Structure formats: C-alpha cells, structure tokens
C-alpha cells in the first residue's frame, strides 16, 4: 500500500471507501500508469478488471479499473479524452488483458487507442457504417 501511496501522492486521490479508490490522471500518463500497475500484478495479485468509457457531453472519460486482490481494493484511474480528438495511448502491449476492451471501446465510442497492435472491429459487424458509434450519447 505504501508503494501506491508514494507513487500516487502528487495525484488527486478520491478515497470513497477502503475498497474503492479513484485517481485522476492525465491522458499522457496512461502508459506510465500501466507500467506501474503491471509491476504490482505479481506481488499484490492484481489484474486489470476492465476499462469503462463514459460519454460526458464535453469529453469522454476512460476509467481503468484495476483490482488488487491482496488489498481487496479496486483502484480506478480516470482520464479525460477530448471529444474533438478522441485519442489515447494503448496499453495492450504492456497488459495483454486490455486488448479486447480497447477494441470494444474503439467500436462503440470511436476512441482511438494509439499503438494498439490490431485495432480491428470486435463487436460491431464488418458492414457497420463508418463513424457511427452506438454508445455515444451526445452526438
């Protein structure tokens, strides 16, 4: 826990309960976050549980939910992705488990994960029209 506290000290941490912590990060730091978290997977029995994308009208929010079983904690990193430039760095080369969910968010929200090895369609059919993103709420 101390390692996490030390590393995340400069960031704004939102502790909702002893099991749910939310941390806000910048879009540029996503890969740094993945590298830091991946190192904790073995000692703290951690994993990337999933990534959620939310349409917040003015921007998108991408939430990386990490589980650290040793601490019984869900650590969520939240980063804002601007609507006019929906691009964020891919973390699937660091954490293989992120590959599917990044492709899914690309399908449903049109957020591009830069550097993803294979950002093909996963959920939507091949003949789905370009530029139509079913889970975008505000156009």
């Amino acid at each position, binding site marked *: 826990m101390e390692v996490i506290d030390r590393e995340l000290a400069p960031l704004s941490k939102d502790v909702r309960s002893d099991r*749910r912590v939310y941390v806000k990060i910048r879009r540029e730091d996503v890969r740094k976050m993945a590298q830091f978290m991946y190192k904790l997977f073995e000692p703290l029995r951690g*994993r990337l549980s*999933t990534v959620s994308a939310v349409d917040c009208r003015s921007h998108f929010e991408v939430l990386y939910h990490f589980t650290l079983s040793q601490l019984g904690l869900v650590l969520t990193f939240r980063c804002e992705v601007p609507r006019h430039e929906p691009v964020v760095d891919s973390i699937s080369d660091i954490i293989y488990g992120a590959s599917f969910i990044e492709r899914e968010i690309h399908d*449903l929200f049109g957020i591009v994960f830069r550097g993803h090895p294979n950002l093909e369609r996963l959920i939507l059919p091949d003949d789905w029209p370009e530029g139509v993103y079913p889970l975008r709420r505000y156009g």
Partner: protein
Amino acid sequence: MMSRDREVVEIPLGPYHPAFKEPEMFKLYVDGEEIVDVKIRIGYQHRGIEYLAQRMTIQQVVFLVERICGICSTSHQNCYCQAIEDAMKIEVPDRARYIRTLIGELERIHSHLLWAGVALHLIGYDTLFMYFWRYREPVCELFEELTGNRQHYAMICPGGVRRDIDLKKMRPKILKVMKEIKEPVAKLADAVAGDKLVRARMSGVGVLTRQDAIRYCTVGPTARGSGLRIDVRADEPYAAYKELGVDVKVMTEGDVLAKTLVRVQEIMESIGIIERCVDAMPNGPIQAEIKEYPVAEGIGKYEAPRGEVIHYVKLNGTTVPERVKVRAPTYANLPSLVPQLIGYSIADAPIILGSIDPCFCCTERVSIVDVREGRTVVLTMSEFNEFGRKRKNPLKVR
C-alpha cells in the same frame, strides 16, 4: 503473429461454435495437426445490453442484467445491485446478505455440475456426463421451490432481496438436497481424477502458465487452475462470505485437468457454505429502502461460477442510469485461449475451448477449409464432437 506460409492451413471454428451452445469465431491456423496460431472474433451475440440499460430505470435494469446469462443469471443481478448500493451507500440487511449467499452458491453448484457434464461429453465420456447432470437436477428443483424458477430467480434487488425464504420449511429440504448430492459428487470427482482415459485427454493439455494467466488478466477457475489465488468471495467478501468463510481452491498445473479439479472441489466447498449459511441465517428485514437518487458512481464485484464479474454504474440524479458497464468473466478469459491452444492438436481444441467454461449462445456447424486444395467440409456439431473423440482428421475421413 506467426508468418503464414502455404503450409499453414486455416480452420475457422465458428461463428457457429463447435463445442458450445453459442456463436463465436475462432480461426485456428494449423500446420498438420498442430495449432500454430489462433484468431478470436466476438460480437455475434451482441445484444446491446449497455445501450438498453441507459434507457431504462434503475429498477428495470435489475431484470435486464439478469438476462445477460442464462446459467449465471443471479451473478450479474447481484453484481449490478452491489454497484448501485456502492453508489447510493446503502447497507444491505443481514438476512438479505445470507439469502444472496445461499442463491449464489446454489447457482455455483448447478453451473459447475453443468460444465463438468459438458466437458466430459466433449471428450466422449457420456456416462459421467449423465451422472453429473443427474445430480444437477435436484439443485434446479430446489431453486424452483425457493424462488419459483429453475433459472432467472429474480431474487435480488438494490438494497436487499425481493422475496424472503421460509426457512422453517426450506431448511430441511435444502440440507436434504446437499446430503443427497455430496457423496455422489465426491465419488464422481474421484472417477474423473482417477480415470486413465480422462487423464490422457486432460492432463498436460491446454496449459496456461502462471505468467500468461497474469498477463491476460484471467479470472475464476481458469486463473485458479494456473496457481493464482484470486477469488472475490475471499478477497473482497461481499454478501455473507465474511462470516461464512471461503476456502479458495487452487491448483498449479494450469492444464485442463487442473481447471476441472478446481471446479469439482469448488462444488464441495459450496455445499459446505450452504450448510453453514442455512444454520447461521439471522432473522430480520430483507430490504433497505432507497431514499434518494444521487449523482454518484459505483463499482460492483461478484465471483460468478466462471470468475469475477464487474459492473460500473454512473448515476445522474434521475431514475435512469447514465452508464452501466458490464464485464463478464468469459470476456476476460477468452484472449487467454490463444496461448492455451497453440502447440496442441486440432482434436484437443474442443476440450481446451471448453476448459474456460465459456458462455456465449448456440448453433451447430463447423466448416473446415483445406487451403492447399481449396476444399471446404462443413461438419455438424455431432460430427465435430466425434472428431474430437476419435482424433481423426475429418478431411482425411471424407
């Protein structure tokens, strides 16, 4: 990705799936009998649950998420309600927590028995398949008496459970069913572990190394078969697991046999939990009231029979949720099939695919394409299973 020269043959398994009841696309690239690469494509069963959830009220979504899965229906319902409770800061009454545990563990027993039967059917051991399903039946009947349904129990709601259980009447019945299945299932477990033929088909097949299990973020029995001690019930005890305790079953081999034995041991553990649960169930209210609809977000986590389920909900102060994100355990385990399949033969593919207990929906054909001769052979499900049992190449047979 490996380079695919002319020697490598592509075998599409799906979108209509060979061994299971649901559509999914696995492209196997084989060199002779050996699988050298795998490509997975999902989405053939996408029903837009998350989209629908943004257009229903919080209470209606309870019934929507229950229909995500037919086998582990209470898992999603429970998980969603926990996410709502996390967002709204609701304390669930004690009796409701125990009822949730009871329903969840009964579901685990019936799901694991169902899976064990299907897995043995995939390798052609139909006698044990029938036996496993014979002992699943009393559990389903018990469900009908407890909840009114064999599946889709609709027992859980935000803040508690919807119906109470008449323990005076049901306790002896529950204990009787547990007693009835305990000994036979233990015997069947020995039959699986001790059978030379089962070992020959499962031992050392479809190995998922501990390192890969971590890298692919696997969950549930798939991860526990590879030596990862992760179980939401023990790590973040929800419902009544804190009081009742869970002994997490772990094996280190990572092969199909390890995953099978983990599940069989979990059935025995679940029987124990249910026996403790009905003895310790307190009296009291079964529902906490929802007083207001806040602007908030919450995360629910639940250990389904196949592994960790996670739901993320964002509420916007109205009765309609702003966002509901669902992650089912098979979604996490599916990519890990790539390292599990590579290096094994085509005939091992059905049982390896089966070993993660995947949950998609159903039809029954496989087309096998011989790229060298440009020939396509379409197999029915029974032909494909036959192929899995006899380990003969269907292209050569026909």
